[in-house]
């Protein structure tokens, strides 16, 4: 036990003394969250919209004027019928179409109720949502102006149609994605480099000649990084809540539980990588290529898995972060409990156990 503590203490010293490690460990997640957060939810100005005006009356014209005047929108074209819409969307010349039905003003003034249809290109879900919100604000502004000289309250409803991505996947989904990415990357990279470094420096030989159990070498490498990863997780979650205003809908304990599973899987992968290579550059490269790419490609947080070719979908199943991503999305965003994620959790736990056992078994006790 005392040996273990001496070792863990040493590991922490390595981390805290190396500015590069510290930067990677804590700078990376912060940068990722802020970058993804702001790149995806930034204000949008002068976005092209098209209008299809079947009404051509007072109300539709004044709303179109408001659109024209708005900083957020650039009126790309006003069309008479909707057959052209798809063409314009396909050319990527607009992100949103606003459709006024015929009798717009009449329904509004006499019936007190009407609808405006918005068609958005949801392949970029964040832009789509933001544009809808802008237009909503604009409509509310119009209504409150008109309300002053009307007896009856008016109500314009939005009827939304998202094309290309009807579920609007991806709005808040990037946080679980970044969590998976950062935890995997940091843990795999850190452990593999930390172990390979000892091989490179020759200190591994000294450790293996000492009575210190090689199994303990693994444990002492894993514990500090497990601890630091949990700190990292707290940082990511805090940033999501306080900077990106994301609410954590489900149980935090559950969230940490599955995250520790993923961290352990990642640490085992790091140990495995350290077994197959003897220098830090290779370890780093394998970690980046082996972790970053599959996580980006296959977890579904950048590209929807349902749209992938069958065999890529099969591959995505063997990647631990895919399951982690599903679990975190369900817990954090949808607020679901354990009963709805136990299957995915079981798969992830199975993968973690498997990787942990293989890495301990494979860890080379002897140099040759």
């Amino acid at each position, binding site marked *: 036990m*005392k*040996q273990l*503590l*001496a*070792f863990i*203490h*040493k590991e922490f*010293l*390595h981390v805290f*003394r*190396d500015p590069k490690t510290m930067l990677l460990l804590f700078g990376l997640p912060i940068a990722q969250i802020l970058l993804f957060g702001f790149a995806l939810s930034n204000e949008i100005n002068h976005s092209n919209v098209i209008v299809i005006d079947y009404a051509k009356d007072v109300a539709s014209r004044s709303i179109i004027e408001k659109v024209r005047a708005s900083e957020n929108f650039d009126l790309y074209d006003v069309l008479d019928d909707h057959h052209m819409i798809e063409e314009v969307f396909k050319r990527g010349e607009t992100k949103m179409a606003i459709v006024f039905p015929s009798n717009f003003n009449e329904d509004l003034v006499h019936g007190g109720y009407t609808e405006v249809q918005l068609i958005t290109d949801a392949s970029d879900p964040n832009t789509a949502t933001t544009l809808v919100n802008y237009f909503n604000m604009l409509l509310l502004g119009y209504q409150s102006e008109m309300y002053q000289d009307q007896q009856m309250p008016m109500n314009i409803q939005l009827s939304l149609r998202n094309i290309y991505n009807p579920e609007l996947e991806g709005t808040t989904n990037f946080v679980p994605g970044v969590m998976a990415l950062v935890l995997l990357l940091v843990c795999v990279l850190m452990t593999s480099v930390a172990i390979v470094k000892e091989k490179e*420096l*020759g*200190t591994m*030989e*000294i*450790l*293996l*000649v*000492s*009575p*210190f159990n090689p199994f303990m070498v693994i444990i002492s490498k894993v514990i500090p990084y497990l601890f630091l990863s949990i700190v990292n997780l707290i940082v990511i979650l805090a940033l999501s809540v306080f900077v990106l205003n994301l609410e954590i809908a489900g149980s935090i304990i559950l969230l940490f539980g599955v995250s520790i599973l993923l961290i352990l899987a990642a640490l085992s992968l790091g140990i495995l990588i350290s077994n197959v290579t003897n220098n830090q550059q290779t370890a780093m490269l394998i970690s980046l290529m082996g972790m970053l790419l599959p996580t980006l490609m296959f977890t579904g947080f950048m590209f929807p898995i349902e749209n992938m070719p069958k065999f890529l979908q099969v591959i995505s199943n063997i990647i631990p972060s895919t399951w982690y991503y599903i679990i975190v999305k369900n817990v954090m965003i949808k607020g679901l409990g354990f009963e709805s994620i136990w299957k995915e959790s079981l798969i992830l736990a199975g993968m973690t156990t498997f990787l942990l056992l293989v890495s301990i078994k494979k860890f080379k006790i*002897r*140099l*040759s």
Partner: protein
Amino acid sequence: MNSQKMISTRDLTKTFGDFVAVNNITFDVRQGEIFGFLGANGAGKTTAMRMLCGLSIPTSGEATIAGYDVYKETEKIKQNIGYMSQKFSLYEDLTVAENIRFFGGIYGLKNGEIKARSRELINALDLNDQKDLLVGSLPLGWKQKLAFSVAIFHHPKLVFLDEPTGGVDPVTRRQFWDMINQASEDGITIFVTTHYMDEAEYCDRISMMVDGYIRALDSPAQLKKQYNAESMDEVFYELARGAKRTE
């Protein structure tokens, strides 16, 4: 079991595929001896030494270290040996004191012991002003001396030194050998590999490995007499020039 023999090997062999790295070596090292393990590059020294340290399992043959079997009792062996590798092997990003504490810690020494011994060690090496400096900032000679002191910090019965003086200046090499002699007087058996023939002269006995075999084993004086040579250099040349294996 003869306690006088620190190392005892019988036909110890290590093969990698078809390649016989170490070929039936048989030798004994007595307790308290300074034993020089010589050979050209690629002769099989490091492989032999790794088997003796428990880092590598022999293909065949027998060996005991401090009376413990290299196949079955590697844990016991590890408790009783020290090892200094040819690469510098302290942590450069830890201070002198932290390195000592760490290695004391993994050998399971008690805190009080570690404190007392490190004070002693730091005084002996005259490192009082440097003990809180990172090891990386020390000159190579000091690093090597520190690495040796750390290798015998847990008072092993036997210490393996793999080319401990590579790259250091003659004055430091001399001081280093003073430390080796001191350790030997304190009862630690020394097993050392080197390429410097003047260092071979400091050994009680030396063995010469050529192409995986031990070709000669005796005291330096005897070897010079046997090969009718003026210096160990000539003995080495005489033996090693027939070598087929080079690195």
